[in-house]
């Protein structure tokens, strides 16, 4: 690892620097007519590229999409496997798609934390004075996060396969399941961008995120069949977006086509983007 110290930098560059003379600067400034504004897509992709650069420079941030998902798979498979399904190998066929959904939906909450820390820095002021499509910085964030979700999915599927998960849907089924999960997670993340902008500190973002994410992911059919639950809980669980998504992903990976649950998952995604996307942009413009 190379570490550059502030001292070296100072002696090497600051002291020898002579500001550009007016005529040199003239050459730099004049004759560069302004190009047309970038399209909404291009601006969003550029912010997505920024997120990739951040991963390149701060790779530790991938911890939550590598170590955490591995831990989730191993912990729940061996903890519940024997008791709930008689054996680990039969439980993982049921559990893995669900735990994949749960973990990725949980990981989405880091979006709120990073929005919250980033917005405090001066660079956001610069982004907000640029003549670009307003939601682009937020969309860019989420595009970068989709890559993180993809990494988490790949890691979990690999670990799952190693300990006995065998999806009947084959590669196509698995890819369709992951794609649906990514679409939903992208949409779901808008809740966190909203909280990231709304709440004052990183800690409060974390706190609120936990309050939302734990009931939402646990009160679903990720671990067990809802038929064993009391009626009032079934009513909640059966209508939870996480249940629809977990069922859709599970069935897709098992080689079926759960049309209703896919439709529910996509419908929820659209609602989440419309509602929380709109609130996020309102907050973003208000700041």
């Amino acid at each position: 690892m190379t570490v550059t110290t502030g001292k070296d930098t100072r002696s090497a560059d600051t002291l020898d620097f002579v500001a550009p003379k007016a005529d040199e600067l003239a050459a730099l400034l004049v004759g560069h007519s302004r190009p047309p504004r970038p399209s909404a897509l291009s601006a969003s992709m550029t912010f997505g590229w920024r997120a990739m650069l951040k991963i390149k420079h701060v790779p530790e941030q991938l911890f939550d999409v590598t170590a955490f998902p591995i831990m989730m798979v191993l912990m729940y498979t061996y903890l519940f496997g024997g008791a709930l399904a008689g054996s680990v190998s039969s439980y993982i066929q049921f559990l893995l798609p669900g735990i994949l959904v749960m973990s990725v939906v949980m990981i989405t909450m880091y979006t709120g934390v990073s929005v919250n820390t980033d917005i405090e820095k001066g660079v956001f002021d610069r982004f907000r004075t640029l003549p670009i499509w307003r939601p682009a910085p937020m969309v860019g964030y989420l595009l970068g996060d989709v890559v993180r979700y993809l990494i988490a999915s790949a890691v979990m599927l690999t670990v799952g396969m190693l300990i006995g998960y065998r999806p009947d849907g084959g590669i196509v089924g698995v890819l369709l399941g992951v794609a649906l999960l990514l679409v939903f997670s992208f949409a779901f993340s808008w809740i966190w961008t909203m909280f990231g902008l709304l709440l004052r500190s990183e800690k409060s973002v974390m706190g609120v995120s936990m309050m939302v994410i734990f009931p939402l992911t646990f009160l679903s059919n990720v671990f067990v069949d809802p038929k064993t639950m009391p009626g009032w809980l079934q009513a909640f669980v059966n209508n939870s977006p996480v249940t629809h998504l977990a069922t859709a992903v599970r069935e897709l990976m098992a080689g079926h086509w759960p049309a209703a649950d896919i439709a529910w998952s996509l419908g929820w995604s659209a609602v989440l983007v419309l509602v929380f996307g709109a609130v996020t942009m309102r907050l973003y413009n208000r700041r």
Partner: protein
Amino acid sequence: MTDLAIETEGLVKVFGSNRAVDGIDLRVPSGTVYGVLGPNGAGKTTAVKMLATLLRPDGGRASVFGRDVVKDADAVRGRVSLTGQYASVDEDLTGTENLVLLGRLLGHTRPAARERSGQLLTAFGLAEAADRQVKNYSGGMRRRIDIAASILNTPDLLFLDEPTTGLDPRSRNQVWDIVRAVVAQGTTVLLTTQYLDEADQLASRIAVIDHGKVIAEGTKGELKASVGSGSVHVRLRDPEQRPGAERVLGGALNATVQLDADPVALTATVNGHGTDLGAAEQAARALAELARAGIVVDDFALGQPSLDEVFLALTDRKGTTA
């Protein structure tokens, strides 16, 4: 009016019970450096943020090149650029990455953005640091990359919010040189600062802001004339002689004399009232009178009025108590 870069009328911004900006009227001619001078918390940054479309005014109106900053924010954003008080670049990215990112966001193709960032980094003496993360830059280098990022597209109006706060004198001079070069190309600069000498060095007109209000506005000459042309700092050998020295100085300079915390030091303002002598001549006379009165002076300095003195003078004249 097309030759005004900025025009505001009764601009107000309220945070809770704090009226951070409390009715500011500004008229900034284009093609000049306009200084906004004031202490911490005077409302400078808040005013700049409203002009740069980052904050919505709670009252009054503001326009940049004739476009309203609220209704026509997008048009304003196309012509301005902001260098905030803290570095407005991404510390995790390298110098090149920061400039390429902005270049892309301003609509340049990837090769054009790369070329442009290379040119700017070289011109700003950052070529060697181009591939280092900005968080490893020194304070002066951060300022330079920040300004480089701001002129990537040659803005018509550049906001520089306290560009030299926290910099060593050498880096400060470098920033000043850059600002002069940018202005020479026709860009209007709105500069906020806490330092009178910085406003003096760069700005052609200055507004002094305190408690969210403009308390004085004018060219440098006008402001100085209103404040007094300088101040005399005197150090005596014997603290017992200070009351006498106060009387003599007050009489000779026709001004109020401040007693400093140091028991042998005094400060008096040299104003132009009632005499056509220059500040140095008045000071020399006062010194001679001190000698005649038998007061031993160990050290003597004639300086620019400090920001404190500017504020004292300006608030005194308005008849308000500080």
